């Protein structure tokens, strides 16, 4: 009995390892292919690429249109994320702690964007903002407006979880009994403690906006060219340059993910009561 179960377990490990290896290879192929394409002189009619070069990267970085597009994308993401945090953290805090009955409503409002794919959202937005008093389509403002809604679920989820793990209600009570007003308790006790968790959401939102295409394409298109729009037009001109852009974009996302991961582990280390106490009780 014991022997067979051991063999079974070993088989299981071989099976799981091969599945996961195949998965990694499969998921890496497109990335690897793009990387190879961005680093070769030529890849036409041959199985393997020919000639190593960095000239596509050099070209891209001296291309003002690329730099401008990148700048626009970074600008939109930064503004949106900052506004979103400034508005959403107090909002979520107030509703969770003082109006818990409204939380269900907040949840629905905030999670609705998950239900509406980009195209659907774009239809309503273009209808309202392409003419009339608020004709902001084609400008950065409509993107900020729309992306704020797009990143709501991330910001909500992480702020909510952070408030829960730090036991915000008790911290507020403690601070108030100790003589703090609500506002000073919020900024000296609540904000510093939820910041790591909220930062994770910001980075996630940031990379989501950098990769967003549908809304950018339908709402502003060429009149406010973001990195994704530029990439698509570049794809039709030079494959090598396009692949270099993709790689740069991907490295950026990779770095952001690495930061998220680091923050995540730092978060769990500083958690109030979850971590193993370092000192033993006498």
């Amino acid at each position, binding site marked *: 009995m014991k022997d067979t179960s051991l063999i079974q377990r070993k088989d299981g490990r071989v099976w*799981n390892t091969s599945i996961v290896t195949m998965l990694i290879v499969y*998921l890496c192929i497109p990335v690897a292919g*793009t990387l190879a394409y961005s680093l070769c002189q030529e*890849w036409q009619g041959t199985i393997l690429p020919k000639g190593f070069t960095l000239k596509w990267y050099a070209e891209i970085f001296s291309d003002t249109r690329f730099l401008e597009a990148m700048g626009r994308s970074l600008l939109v993401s930064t503004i949106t994320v900052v506004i979103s945090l400034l508005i959403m953290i107090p909002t979520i805090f107030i509703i969770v702690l003082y109006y818990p009955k409204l939380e269900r409503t907040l949840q629905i409002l905030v999670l609705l964007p998950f239900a509406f794919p980009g*195209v659907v959202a774009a239809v309503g937005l273009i209808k309202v903002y392409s003419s009339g008093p608020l004709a902001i389509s084609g400008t950065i403002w409509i993107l900020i407006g729309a992306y704020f809604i797009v990143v709501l679920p991330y910001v909500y989820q992480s702020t909510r979880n952070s408030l829960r793990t730090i036991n915000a209600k008790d911290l507020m009570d403690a601070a108030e009994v100790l003589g703090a007003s609500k506002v000073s308790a919020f900024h000296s006790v609540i904000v510093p403690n939820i910041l790591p968790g909220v930062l994770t959401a910001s980075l996630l939102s940031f990379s989501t906006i950098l990769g967003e295409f549908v809304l950018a394409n339908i709402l502003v298109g060429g009149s406010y060219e973001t990195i994704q729009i530029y990439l698509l037009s570049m794809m039709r001109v030079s494959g090598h340059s396009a692949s270099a852009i993709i790689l740069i974009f991907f490295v950026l996302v990779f770095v952001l993910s690495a930061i998220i991961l680091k923050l995540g582990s730092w978060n769990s280390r500083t958690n109030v009561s979850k971590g193993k106490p370092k000192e033993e009780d006498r």
Partner: protein
Amino acid sequence: MGRKGAGTNKIILLALTPFLVWIIAFEAVPVLSMLLSSFQSDNDQGFTLGHYITMMTGPIYQQAIKNSITIAFFSSVAGTFFALFCAYSITRFTRRRRDQLLTFTNMVTNFSGVPLAFSYIILLGSNGMFTLLFQKLGWQVLGSFDPYSWAGLTIVYIYFQIPMGIMLLYPAYYGIREEWREGAAILGASNRKFWLYIGLPTIMPSVLGTFVILFANALGAYTTAYALSINFNLLPIRIGKLVSGDVFARPELGSALAVLLAITMLLALYINERMVKLTRRR
């Protein structure tokens, strides 16, 4: 708080206004205007059900809906199927390794849209690496593969469905307790029988829920198909053309199609929530 002063309440509500204004401007009003416009006739402002009738009877729209459903269905079946195995294998690794794998998988989900379409062309396009490789190997069926066919598009969709499926599905495996497995083994059940009678029934709701989410995800996907070729007659692409195309713009009809898509998404989310609840209750 003593007895809550009306003043405090007012200040708190004031803090919620920016959020409310934003939600109204960029979520509520656009959604409502989309809904209203789907019932408005093309030129005047009269009420009509015409767009819904056109949508259901016009061959081009029928075709778009049919195409979208077909590709969403097949790519979700395949995505769920592969994710089922991959997610299981991932859960069998140590915690550290598992987290690394999940982070990797999650990161790959960023490689979708325009970058994915691009890498697909350089790998499986008419001059792509794999196409040439298959030709050299004499695998004519694969070598003469048409990247712009429906089969081709389905393959691209499957690529982004698998990692998403894994992320949705892996928590379900933690619902299967090690004790059940041990209990079943002691009662004489083989590994295969355990999965047949206990394992699969337990995760079945999650599997269905995942399928539904993937289905909705594929149904709303716009970018990949758009970047490959604007000529795929898919529901999201059709909507995009109707609202932003200069010549063929028929925003009211586009709205009707978008409403259909939105309702499908809401339905999918609802089914998923029910399914997740079903798993949790066990």
